[in-house]
């Protein structure tokens, strides 16, 4: 059979490509095995709580590797936990309310508040091995990533359309099949997007998680975060820029190698009945899909394993529908509930006893700090709104500008603000601004992007006929903003502000308290108090400030954001 010349050339092209891709896959597998060996040797080796951090750029690849492994392990843990937690919360009617409320509270507790407990427990668990320290850092990153993912999966499960669920029931899907063919695919898109947000949050707190003091003990783990912090402490500008460059490089690489393929892959889980015009694509994903090696692996390993699993699950029978607990299960549930309730009461008693030992001065400083941080969070949100609304609307309305500005903004947003702190601080000190005001700028660095991206999305979502109405009736600028633009972007703006507000509270712990050039810069604030209490090992004060912060965040959410969100969902929704 002879092929037309053009066609045969593309076929040959694909073949060579496919060989190259196979080689790449092979190389990646080898590198993975090598990495596993290195990391296991290091993790299982002798413990060095305070590693010497080199400021030489040559140490950066190794540090980047260690940080990446920590992030990856923390992410995998987060994913597993999020899926499990979301699953139980969605299906256990007795626990649902409690678990969702708990998520709300846990989400509002800053990472550093977990630090002493987690670290000391892990070190006590593996006193002689590096593993304990590393697991501590991993768990810290985990606490910063997991909650929104869990909530996303829970919300997905709750919103599965009724008829899809009924189809799974009537055809007798086993639990496993229901999970693999209905629940996980339905939740996949939400999980991917929340994973991106979570991992970005992980980079944000990497410095805090890799290098910290705990009472008299100094902890330093080799990694990008500790490198940057060491460079900042020494005031070594060159090293700061090297570290920054390495971090941005890793983040951009991850974006190409992990997130873009993940988004393109998850597009097939979109719950739509009609194919949408624009589909995300990823070069890498296309290449991997074309690889013969990967295809053979799937055929020889993945498929038989999946088959075996589904047969095993099918043998155990269909999943129960509408689980209504019977007799002994109810009793067991009640006993478990009573036990948990008892433990919680006991812990509460402990908290009360601890708080009683605090001095009035400490209480006062906590309240002052809380109002200072509250004011800063509010200020940072206002500033973010002031500049991002006009900028975002301009970008959203102008496709040409959007094509140019969006990738730029994405790169800017992907740089963890904490890594920029030293640079910003240097500039602040030069112009003579204090950290009191400077920390607002630092919060802004971390959170304004959420607002900007949402405003852009909102502006793009305003139907062009509404804008045409404004043109036809010659609305003046003020009228145009009041009747078309602001109401149109309102739901998106609120979403952005909610996320930014949560981020700003969390950022206060790193923005208000900073080790720099051998000294500690700090300003009055709840975040600074949490950081310093954690540094000094003052668990009582740490507990108090954490409770105050969590209460504030939850109250603001209930009193301000939830009503606004409701308003956005009802009055300002653009569909019908």
């Amino acid at each position, binding site marked *: 059979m002879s092929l037309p010349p053009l066609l045969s050339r593309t076929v040959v092209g694909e073949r060579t490509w496919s060989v190259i891709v196979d080689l790449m896959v092979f190389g990646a597998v080898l590198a993975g095995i090598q990495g596993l060996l290195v990391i296991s040797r290091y993790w299982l080796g002798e413990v060095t709580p305070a590693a010497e951090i080199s400021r030489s750029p040559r140490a950066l690849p190794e540090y980047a590797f260690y940080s990446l492994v920590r992030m990856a392990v923390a992410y995998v843990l987060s994913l597993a936990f999020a899926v499990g937690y979301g699953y139980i919360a969605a299906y256990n009617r007795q626990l649902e309310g409690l678990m969702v409320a708990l998520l709300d509270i846990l989400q509002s507790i800053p990472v550093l508040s977990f630090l002493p407990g987690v670290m000391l427990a892990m070190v006590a668990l593996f006193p002689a091995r590096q593993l304990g320290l590393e697991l501590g850092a991993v768990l810290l990153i985990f606490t910063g990533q997991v909650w929104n993912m869990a909530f996303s999966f829970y919300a997905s499960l709750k919103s599965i359309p009724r*008829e899809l669920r009924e189809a799974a029931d*009537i*055809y007798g899907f086993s639990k496993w099949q229901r999970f693999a*063919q209905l629940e996980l695919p339905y939740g996949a898109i939400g999980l991917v997007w929340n994973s991106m947000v979570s991992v970005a949050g992980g980079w944000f707190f990497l410095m805090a998680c890799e290098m910290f003091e705990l009472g008299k003990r100094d902890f330093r783990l080799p990694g990008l975060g500790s490198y940057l912090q060491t460079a900042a402490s020494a005031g070594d500008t060159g090293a700061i820029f090297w570290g920054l460059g390495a971090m941005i490089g890793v983040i951009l690489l991850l974006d190409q190698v992990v997130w873009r393929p993940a988004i393109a892959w998850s597009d*097939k889980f979109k719950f739509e009945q009609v*194919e949408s015009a624009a589909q995300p694509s990823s070069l890498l994903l296309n290449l991997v899909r074309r690889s013969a090696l990967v295809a053979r692996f799937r055929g020889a390993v993945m498929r038989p394993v999946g088959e075996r699993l589904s047969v095993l699950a099918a043998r155990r029978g269909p999943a129960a529908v509408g689980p209504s607990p019977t007799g002994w299960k109810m009793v067991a549930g009640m006993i478990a509930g009573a036990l948990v309730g008892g433990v919680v009461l006991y812990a509460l008693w402990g908290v009360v006893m601890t708080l009683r030992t605090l001095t009035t001065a400490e209480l006062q400083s906590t309240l002052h700090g809380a109002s200072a941080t509250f004011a800063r969070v509010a200020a940072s949100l206002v500033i973010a709104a002031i500049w991002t609304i006009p900028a975002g609307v301009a970008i959203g309305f102008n496709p040409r500008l959007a094509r140019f500005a969006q990738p730029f903004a994405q790169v800017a947003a992907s740089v963890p603000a904490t890594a920029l702190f030293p640079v910003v601080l240097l500039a602040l000190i030069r112009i003579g601004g204090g950290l009191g005001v400077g920390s607002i700028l630092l919060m802004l660095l971390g959170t304004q992007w959420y607002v900007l991206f949402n405003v852009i999305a909102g502006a793009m979502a305003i139907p062009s006929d509404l804008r045409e109405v404004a043109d036809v009736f010659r609305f003046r600028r003020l009228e145009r903003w009041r009747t078309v633009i602001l109401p149109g972007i309102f739901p998106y703006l609120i979403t952005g502000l909610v996320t930014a507000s949560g981020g700003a509270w969390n950022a206060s712990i790193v923005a208000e308290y900073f080790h720099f050039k051998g000294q500690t810069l700090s300003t009055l604030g709840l975040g600074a108090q949490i950081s310093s209490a954690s540094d000094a090992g003052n668990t009582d004060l740490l507990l108090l400030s954490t409770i105050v912060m969590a209460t504030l965040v939850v109250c603001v959410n209930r009193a301000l954001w939830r009503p606004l969100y409701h308003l956005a969902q009802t009055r300002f929704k653009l569909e019908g």
Partner: protein
Amino acid sequence: MQAIIEARKVEKSYGSPGDGLIQVIAPMDLAVYPDEILGVLGPSGSGKSTLLRMLAGLARPSAGDVVHHGHAVGGPCENVSIVFQSFALFPWLTVLENVAAPLKARGVPAAERDERSVRMLDTVGLDGFEKAYPKELSGGMKQRVGFARALVVEPEVLFMDEPFSALDVLTAENLRGELLELWQSHKMPTRAVFIVTHNIEEAVLLADRIIVLGKNPATIRTDFRVPLQRPRERKDARFTELVDYVYRVLTRPDLAPKLEPAPVVAQLPKPRYQMLPHAHLTALAGLLELLADGTGRDDMYRLAAALTFEIDDLLPVVDVSTLLGFARVEEGDVEITPAGRAFAEADILRRKELFRAAALANAALIREITRSLEARPDHTLPDGVFEDILDEHFSEDEAKAQLETATAWGRYAELFDHDSGSRRFFLHEDSVARGEAAPR
């Protein structure tokens, strides 16, 4: 004859026992026999779909039993399938994977699974589409996948929940024909078909036996065999006669159906709260104008066609006009009243006045909201007050729907308004002025 699935005194209610119990299905006996297509007809909200789900074992009856070959059903019935109105295909699975999924659930090995699925796709005319994703298919093809998935497990009973109502007219007709062909040629390994629909012609076309449900709560109004040979012709006089008969049963809740005696139904615990029909008021004007322009009386069937309405959409409009005293229903015909004629011939403002008077006189909820608002010094009340009252009589969703309809009526009549932000009702300013001009 031995029934395959039998409902024995099943009923369904929502809410808690005691005061707030709302019965949607009154105790009902019903059996699905082998070798028949059973069609269930009823107005929307009559609990047809709930009935289907109870028989299939997806929903539990509040009382009574569903029995499958003599055994009480506790969970989803074995060996039954459902074809859904929304198709309910998994969009992330290919056509082949969608069809094979039920076989996978039964632990059928991969090779056999694929072979049987491909064969079934062939049967429904989808060969060559195995690797496509549902979103790449048209509505009709999607429902073919739905059929293939339902039939691949060789179900004893095939349940269908309005399977053709999401499709356009031509596609639906085409699929109906193919379903009948599969059934008659015994190409589908199914003993019985249970189809829920609101389309009377569809039921008469397909079913061997038809059950018509009444609503609030659902009761069996009539249950009869369709005495027509297949293939059935829509233009056949006996076909239209049967369609007319079903229309009469559907539209005259007080009329005792003549083919079979009305079943004895347990008496309701308390008088029902009057229910506002959910219809657009523009459709009300349209119907009355149409009647006024003609002879003043017309067959509901023809009216639906003239307004390009499904009968299911027309019924609430007819309900509104009878409730307001603008029209009467007799023997499947709608007749305009003098009040209705006055409305049809009035201008916009005059229409609002007539509507206002009629609504206040005849619609309990409208009257109640207006009077309550008038009694308040600030002429406003939270909507929760009325929702609480309605919750005692209706399901939660229906209570909401009632309030929404009342809001639309109140706005049109310029009696009161509702603000969704503060969730409060307000007396309309004109209404305030009217109240002060004529103090009681």
